[in-house]
């Protein structure tokens, strides 16, 4: 085994708890969003069981929300899969960044932590600071977030079945609030700003022009805009 044992690591139960505590702000912040996903799924026509299954098995807020929007717009299977593939592609980067730390672990740990590897968990997992990863800490952070997300979805399903048109209350602002808070610290270069501006413009254009593949186009053009900007900057230097 190549991974070393951190001499500062505490007993598993303590690390689980520390991970849970560290994740608490995001677990709270994500609650309205989980609630929205539950209530919205019913409105789109999913059964309560299907709605909960989305959060239990897919466990990816953006993909869930976007897929529900596409289902509501009567988009086909292929369109949903292509969009999901593009939205979820960023997770490839997270697993790549954590490869050295997680791949030496036993299979059940790899599968477990892999399943729990959300944007939020990645933000809370030291990826390249040289310190060994404490698997119990990561499990505490990931699992507590998973439970919070699913409880929020359950509440959304319960409320959604009791109160019709719940989603018209403007719950989707929870997504705007959460994503904005995650996005702002990410904009550290002109290239990233260029990526965001392009993705936003194409996405709004797609919404106004009612393009089926609007989101897909927006994400791709944003990624290429940032990349080309960065390459041009390097070329000019």
């Amino acid at each position: 085994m190549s991974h070393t044992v951190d001499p500062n690591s505490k007993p598993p139960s303590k690390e689980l708890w520390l991970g849970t505590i560290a994740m608490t702000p995001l677990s709270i912040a994500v609650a309205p969003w989980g609630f929205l996903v539950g209530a919205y799924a019913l409105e789109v026509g999913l059964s309560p069981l299907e709605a909960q299954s989305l959060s239990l098995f897919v466990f990816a807020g953006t993909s869930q929300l976007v897929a529900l929007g596409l289902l509501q717009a009567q988009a086909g299977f292929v369109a949903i899969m292509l969009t999901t593939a593009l939205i979820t592609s960023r997770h490839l980067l997270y697993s790549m960044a954590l490869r050295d730390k997680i791949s030496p672990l036993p299979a059940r740990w790899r599968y477990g932590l892999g399943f729990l590897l959300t944007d939020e968990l990645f933000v809370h997992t030291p990826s390249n600071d040289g310190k060994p990863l404490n698997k119990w800490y990561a499990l505490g952070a990931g699992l507590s977030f998973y439970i919070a997300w699913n409880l929020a979805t359950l509440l959304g399903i319960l409320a959604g079945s009791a109160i019709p048109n719940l989603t018209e209350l403007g719950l989707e602002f929870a997504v705007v609030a959460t994503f904005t808070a995650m996005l702002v610290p990410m904009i550290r270069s002109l290239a990233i700003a260029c990526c965001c501006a392009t993705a936003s413009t194409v996405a709004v254009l797609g919404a106004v022009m009612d393009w089926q593949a609007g989101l897909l186009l927006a994400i791709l053009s944003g990624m290429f805009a940032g990349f080309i900007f960065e390459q041009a900057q390097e070329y000019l230097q």
Partner: protein
Amino acid sequence: MIALTLAAMALLVFASRYLFLEPRLPIELGPKLRRLMGYATPAVLSAVIAPMVLSHQGELVTDWQNPYLLGAIAAVLIMLLTKNTLLSTVLSMVLFVMLKFWLFA
């Protein structure tokens, strides 16, 4: 049909999260592709937020009295000033609810 879509989505998402955690995987992404993928997260976040803030039912929003727009601006400002995720999320949501159901109602 929904069940199939759900299962395929679950597989796709898990595969993307797990792929590079598999020790037997011999490949690595090249540096160019890696950098391109580095823009995926900000691109996804922007592409999801922007239409929610700037359009409503397929129409461009030009009115400043838009709770989504003002709420998003508040979230950006609070985040820049405090760098506190929870504070920014909660305060901007409170502002949004006040604007939507009280001031602009």
